[in-house]
């Protein structure tokens, strides 16, 4: 029997018998769990109720593929923002994967225990820094650096990618570490017994075996990066044009909502909800992929 059915059975038993304390507690926990889920359902229903009619009114194709965003004149096209979100997210992932995965490999394969106990918590500490602080550091240090040394306005895809990359580093690192640690020890012992060096063992055996876990780490990191708002508003420049290079400024879906939410009314406000719907769909797709990948990994582990 699956866990949710057990829960519901217990809750029903509590209703029938009404006396046993254990059942009462189970019923109480069920109510709490359901209210958390209904919160999600309500948010989703509300965003869709507000956003979908305007998408249909404008036309799905025109809303998604038009580049004209002039909300006060009734033109709503979010193509540059979708592209902007994707550019920034991909850039962030390149940085987070290079550094995060490298770090995870070091921590699990090559690092003495004492050093692990210093490095791992410090990376996880990065997750505790508020995003506005990242944004501020980006504006004060990163943006002028890019403007002076690489050209362009400084506020750019590159700046946002770096900031977001650092922000997603803890997610990518810690989930990759878990995935690498989950690789059974006999795999490594077998490989080393066959005469492979430690590096050969790492990249030919351990990384391959942990691949699906690493993919899940990357996708969860992407979810975090694409949804981040505050830091991105501060360093992305928020222009309405399509970016042509990584030094061009961009506007992401999230910053479009946050920038204009305070002012928007009528169709403009609905269009911002529609932007939210688009973001919601993109994140749902990413999460579903992550779930499928990690479930496949779980299934494979059980079959062994």
């Amino acid at each position, binding site marked *: 029997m699956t866990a949710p059915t057990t829960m519901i059975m217990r809750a029903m038993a509590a209703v029938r018998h009404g006396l046993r304390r254990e059942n009462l507690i189970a019923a109480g926990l069920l109510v709490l769990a359901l209210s958390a889920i209904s919160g999600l359902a309500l948010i989703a229903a509300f965003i869709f109720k507000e956003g979908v009619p305007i998408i249909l009114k404008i036309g799905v194709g025109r809303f998604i593929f038009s*580049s004209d965003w002039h909300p006060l004149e009734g033109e709503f096209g979010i193509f540059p923002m979708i592209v902007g979100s994707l550019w920034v997210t991909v850039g962030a992932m390149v940085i987070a994967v290079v550094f995060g995965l490298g770090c995870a490999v070091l921590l699990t394969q090559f690092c003495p225990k004492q050093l692990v106990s210093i490095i791992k918590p410090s990376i996880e500490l990065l997750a505790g820094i508020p995003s506005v602080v990242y944004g501020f550091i980006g504006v004060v240090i990163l943006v*002028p650096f890019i403007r002076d040394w690489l050209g362009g*306005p400084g506020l750019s895809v590159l700046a946002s990618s770096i900031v977001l990359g650092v922000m997603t580093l803890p997610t990518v690192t810690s989930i990759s570490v878990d995935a690498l640690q989950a690789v059974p020890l006999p795999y490594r012992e077998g490989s080393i017994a066959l005469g492979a060096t430690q590096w050969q063992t790492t990249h030919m055996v351990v990384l391959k075996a942990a691949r699906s876990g690493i993919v899940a780490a990357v996708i969860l990191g992407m979810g975090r990066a694409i949804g981040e708002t505050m830091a991105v*508003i501060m360093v992305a420049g*928020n*222009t309405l044009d399509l970016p042509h290079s990584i030094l061009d400024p961009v506007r992401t879906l999230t910053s479009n909502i946050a920038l204009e939410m*305070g*002012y928007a*009314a009528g169709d403009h406000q609905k269009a911002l909800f529609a932007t939210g719907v688009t973001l919601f769909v993109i994140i749902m797709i990413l999460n579903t992929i992550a779930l499928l990948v990690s479930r496949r990994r779980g299934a494979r582990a059980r079959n062994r």
Partner: protein
Amino acid sequence: MKSFWAAAVLIIGLIVLSVALGRGSASAVNLVGSTSIQPFAEMLAQEFNREHPDCLVEVQGGGSTQGLRAVDNSMTDIGTCSRALKKEEEEDAAKNYRTVIIARDGLAIVTHPGNPVTNLTIDQIRQMFEGRGITNWRQVGGKDAPVRLITREEGSGTREAFMQKVMDKSRISGKALTQGSNGAVKELVKHDPCAIGYMSLGLVHGELNMVHVDGVAPTVAEVTAGRYPLVRPFLFVTKGPPGEKAQRFIDFILSPRGQAMLEREGLVTAR
């Protein structure tokens, strides 16, 4: 188990307490709206609260349009608006807006302190912000460098005042960098030698270069004399006549003392 109940009682107690305290401050006068007016309103509110501790004034931002909407919904006593009301807003009887001009503000066209360009015509500014015509500072007598536009987000009172006064019917280029507040515009222009932006004259505080517009310097004196072309009103908007406490605050602002304070901060008096 005992500590669990103790914690539960404590939490419920805190909730009850915060609700009770929240009700206590219900007699405050609320201001919601323009981020350009906010710093001035906060300063005035502080001074006003010192003299009238019984009548608290609370100031929030959100933007001019947000302020008007809050007035519509009776969510605030006074909405602040940093642009002239649009015709349809003014004539809508259902909204029943009453407006008071508390001050006037110049719209400064700002550039980096090292930028040698000192004068631009409104026509040149428009051509720059259209992103066509003038795209290099050399074309207006400056250095050979691209013009980097900095604008405010759609719906901002400062942006709409700029649109009304400068852009006429044209659009601001999609290449313009969009920032969410006067402060963010200022920060960007201060560090970017190629930048041009627009912001509230009273908030520049001499940290940026302000270009003369059509040959007129952006100073309080020129705004008062009616020569500087980019001027907008700072409005307090209420639904119907203001309440007794709101009226007291408005009277304070319009009094010679309140007006003198605004003038010291770089604004131009209402009359």
